Every structure is written in C-alpha cells, then in structure tokens.
C-alpha cells in the first residue's frame, strides 16, 4: 500500500515537474524550500496564536511497566512568532509537586540562555535554575525540556529526504553534535497541518533509539493542534504519554501574568 502511494506520488511529482517545465516557470519555484518548511512546522507546533493555555497530563511508564502521573497547566505567550516566548507550568499532581510552578523565558538567540525559575511552595522559595542541558528529562518524563519548549531550528541542518503526497520527511543533523545525544533525527512533517508528526532519533550507527510522535491532532480555533503525543525510549521500552485538554488560544494573556508574582499567587482566572 505504502509502496503504491509512493509510486503514485512519484508520478504526481513527475507530472508536476513536467507541467512546471512546460509552463516555463523558473526552476526555484518548483524546488522545495526546506527552511520554510521547517519554519512553518515550528510555528505550527509551538506558536499557535499569540498566546495559549492548556491543561496537560502525562503518564510515565518505565521499562518495568511502573506508572507515574503528572498533571499541570501551561500558559504561554509569544513575544514574537518563531521568536522569544514566556511560559509558566503550574503543577497539580502528584501530591508532592502540587503548587510547584516552573517559569521559563525562552530566548531563541542561541547565545542567550533561557531564564528559568522554580517555585517550591513548601519552602516559599523562588529558585532560579541555572540553564542546563535542555536534553534532560522534563519532570521525570521521557520528554526533554526541549521537546516541551521547542528545539531551536537554527541548531540543526535540514535536508529533504522524501517528499510524499502527505508529508515531507527531513533529516536533521546538529550543528553542534557534541551538545546532543543524537547523531541525527528524521522528522516527518504533515503537509496539511505543517505539524511534525513523527520524529525518530538515531545514533551514529543508525540505531533508532528514541521516537516522538503525534498521536492525535485536533483543530482548535483554526489551529491544528497535537492533543496527544507519545515519546518512546525504543531501547528500554519505556515511554511517556502526554495529553492536552481545555486548550485555548489568543486569550490576551498579558506580560504581567508571566512574572514572579504569578509564582506565589497564580493567575487563577487562567488556570481553572
């Protein structure tokens, strides 16, 4: 089946190319602009609307099948599309992290580290966190910080591997390979939604050890949105499921929602 689709697709693209030649359209227009695919995918995945809120829950399943839950609410505000972002994560579950708040000022300029804070309610402590390796576990899950906040597209070189009817398949190679655990990753970007729907991470021996996939997509206020995703550790069999609910975009979240004030006294109108 898949093979047939590919064949059809090849024919289709051949026809398209022939038509393009016939119409004497300049060659660049027919060639595919990889950087704009990537940019559109980033925008679709992380920059829907000017701001947004969502309830999230995660189920973390370790290699022995033991389960942990996380439940939190995310508020996000874009300083600019494909640019800097403000983010707050309010934890509700499990009991030992209830009312813990995580605050991030994300900077896309690679020379500027993200600013991060953690509010620990039992100590009434606002703890500034040193910018760490972004490819470490987000609250014990198999998602990395970078999966949640978005890996800057300027960190990788992208080449088109495959152009099917439904999707672009790109191979991404890190510009600074010593800073990451992967040799390259292959991302499938759905043409209809511009959303990355499958990302497979490989080691240098082409061993596919990690997978991030969109499991369910819904259109919310006109924005195609991943509402269920899964990340798998393909070596151990452990995985994490994440589900977003009660999603809203363009709420008009003000700058002053994303401050230390909200760590101690959360903005309830946006949380409940």
């Amino acid at each position, binding site marked *: 089946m898949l093979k047939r689709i590919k064949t059809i697709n090849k024919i289709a693209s051949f026809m398209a190319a022939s038509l393009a030649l016939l119409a004497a359209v300049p060659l660049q227009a027919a060639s595919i602009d990889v950087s704009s695919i990537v940019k559109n995918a980033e925008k679709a995945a992380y920059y829907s609307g000017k701001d947004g809120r969502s309830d999230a829950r995660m189920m973390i399943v370790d290699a022995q099948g033991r389960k942990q839950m996380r439940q939190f609410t995310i508020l996000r505000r874009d300083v600019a599309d494909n640019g800097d972002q403000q983010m707050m994560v309010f934890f509700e579950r499990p*009991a030992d992290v209830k009312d813990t708040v995580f605050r991030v000022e994300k900077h896309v300029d690679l020379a500027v580290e993200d600013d991060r804070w953690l509010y620990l309610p039992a100590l009434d402590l606002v703890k500034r966190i*040193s910018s760490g390796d972004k490819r470490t576990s987000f609250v014990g899950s198999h998602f990395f910080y970078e999966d949640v906040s978005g890996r800057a597209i300027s960190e990788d070189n992208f080449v088109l591997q495959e152009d099917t009817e439904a999707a672009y398949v790109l191979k991404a190679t890190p510009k600074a390979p010593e800073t990451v655990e992967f040799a390259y990753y292959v991302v499938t970007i759905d043409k*209809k939604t511009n959303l990355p729907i499958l990302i497979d991470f490989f080691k240098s021996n082409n061993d596919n050890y990690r997978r991030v996939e969109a*499991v369910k997509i819904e259109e919310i206020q006109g924005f195609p949105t991943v509402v269920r995703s899964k990340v798998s550790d393909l070596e151990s069999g452990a995985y994490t499921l994440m589900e977003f609910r009660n999603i809203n975009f363009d709420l008009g979240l003000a700058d002053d929602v994303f401050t230390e004030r909200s760590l101690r006294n959360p903005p309830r109108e946006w949380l409940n």
Partner: protein
Amino acid sequence: MKNVFSAFVLSIGVASASLLDVALAQETEWDMEEWGEEEKAPKSFSGFVELAAGARLSSDPVINTDKTLADLRAQLQWDKDFDASRVKFTADLYYDGVLDQTKLQIRELAWQGSLSSILDLGEWSKKFDIKVGQQVLTWGTGDYVFLNDLFPKDFQSFFAGRDDDYLKAPSLAAKVSGFFDWANVDAVITPKFSPDNYINGDYFSFFSPFAGANVAPGFEVSSPNKPSSPEYALRVYKTIGSTEYAVYAYDGFHKSPASFTEFGEPYFSGLRVYGASAITPFASGLLNMEMAYYDSKDDAQGRDPLVPNSQSRWLVGYEQELVKNLTGSAQLYVERMSNFDALKASSLTPEFDPNKNRVLFTQRLMYRALQQTLTLNAFNFYSTSDKDGYLKLSADYSPVDQWQLSGGFNVFYGKERFSFFNQFEDASNAFVRFKYYY
C-alpha cells in the same frame, strides 16, 4: 480496552479531515481507564504519612540516647480556591520518639489574594497581593546560607535529617506585596516574635563557653526574656535584563538566644539588618552575591561580652550544570565581626571566642539518575577560619508517585571542641525516611 480505543481513533480519523495518517496512530496503547481516573478535578485533600529514624554515629556523653530522629508523621493539606484568592492549610501531626511527645505543627493556614478581591480601590488595589496567617516565608540568594532571610528556621530538623522542607519553620505573619513599574515590594509583619528552632540540647548538645564543655539543658527561653514587640521585614526587588536585584531590611531580634542577661539567662537581643543581593546568569551558570549588615542593637560598641557584636556578612556563589544531570555549586561566605578589639578586651571566655573573620566555603553536588527517580545530594560546609565543617549527604528514591525512600548522613567534623560546627561532632548521625502519599 485497547481495541476500543483503536476504534475510537479510527472513527475520529474518518470524521476529522485534519487527522494524520491512521498508519501513524498504530500500536499506541492509550489505556483510557488509567487516564480516566483523573478526569475529575484533583481532590482538595492530600498529604502523606512518614516514618523516619536516625541515630548518632557515636554516643554523646551528655545526652542519654543515640536516637536523633524517630518520627511517625502525618501531613494533611487542604486548599480552597475562590475567584481571586485562596485559603490553604497544611498541618503536620507527629509523634516525636526522641522526645516522646506528640506534636502538631500548623505549617500553613493562610489566606492569599489580591487586595482588589477584598477592597475595591480601582486599578491601584490590583497592584497589591496579601497573604495573612500562618505561613512559611523565604527570600535571599544563598543555598543553606542565610543573610537577609530572618524568617524562622528549624536547625534541629535540618541536623536530624528531616526533609529540607522543614528547615523553614512557619510564622504567623502578614505579608503585603506591591508590584510597580519601578520595583516590587514585600513587607512582612510578624506580630509575635518567631525565633529559630535553635539547637537547645533537646536532640543535640552544644558547647557552653561558661561550662567549658558541651551541655544539653533542653532549655526554653521564658517570657520575660522573650521579645514582646513585632518583627518587620522588607524586600524591594527588581529584574533588569536577566539580573535580579534586591535590597532588604529587617527590624527585630537575633533569632536564637545568643545573648545573656546579667543573671546568665539566655535572651534574644535586638537586631537590625540591612542588605542587598543580585543574581545573574554568568558563564554557563548562575552567579549570586549577597551582603548584609547585622546591627546588634543592644551592643552598639561591641563592649558587652554577653551580647553578640555587630557583623557584616558577605556571600558569593556560583552554580552550574557540570555534565548532564549533575549540577555543582560553590559558595564563599564571610562573617566579619565589628569592634573585634572591644570584644577581645571585655570577653569573659577569651579562649573560646570566635575569630574576627569567619570564612566558610560550601560545595554542593547534585545528581539525578534513573529518569529523575533517584536524586543524590552532597553538601559540604567547610570553614577555613575554624578548621571545621559539616557534610550533609542524602539520597531520595521515588520510582512511583505513591512513595519515597530517603536516607543520608549528617557529619560534623573539625579540630576544636568549641568551634561553630565541630561542637556538634557528637550530633553526627545517619537517617532513613519512608514517605507514603495518600
């Protein structure tokens, strides 16, 4: 159940044009029952029960038990959200097997909200938040080192190996926070003086210069020697770029009874503190600086041997992730005594006097392993001026949401029996705790 879900995905796939390839939704096993159990809003009650035990590494001649920790504890949390405010309650009921006492500690019973939710003064009132009641308060930039944070601390719990949460003790206070373009302001009034839970001999003995040896009187400071006036604390802070600046002021009392009346009774003498701090990203980590001037009001000239002298305190710290999941930090802390010569001249026990400068280095290594279910911490205080230190080692393991197992050591070491840390040499202990969340 899995099949039902597959059908669900399929039907959505057919119904929704924006759904991705069915092929991609393959082999996902979203167990809806498991998710379904928290469809409801989280319950407003939560908490845990904990069993904790600890013992001395070597016996203490002045305390007749080797037990340093023996808690059977239940914590209950409850909160209620209103439109723009919240009431929160956290209480610990525990049996303390070292003292053979059952205790209730209200860690939080406070109302918090915007001023505008109780008093409508237009835009102006929206700039203020208020938190009133029993609460834990913290500010400042130090790691286990406090300069401008004069809120009560519980050093007995810290030494015994209770959870770090218990290092901060609650106080009955009112906090007003104002948020303005020029800066943010926190003002805290604690009507009834809340001292630290200092080392008083209940669990651990301490050095008495008058006895020339360790003592364990288990004393309480009685009411005539306990301050009756309130404590005031103020912080003004602002972030400029990525750097956070703050200035602080405090008017109250020394938090432990380090002063003595003419009859030799310990009391809390007056104290004012002024200070400032900054914290900023630096290199690939975080750099923090803090200073404070401790104005010992009852001994302005430093001549009174029964009252601590004024001090200036300085802190510089740096924290960085060293390799993935391993964070290291170091701090340099200096206490400089004012009017040192005056103290020397009037001292009753000059052989046990502290140095003019107390210099302290701290190092922390924190490692997270096994998908963050295991956290290892090593924190070391070492004083180059006193040639003594305190090493705190701990491990926390929690592979599931329901329970956590912790264990560790508190080790005090040094040369002289009267120095700041080494006086607690016999307090060195090992501990283990098991916590079950309900």
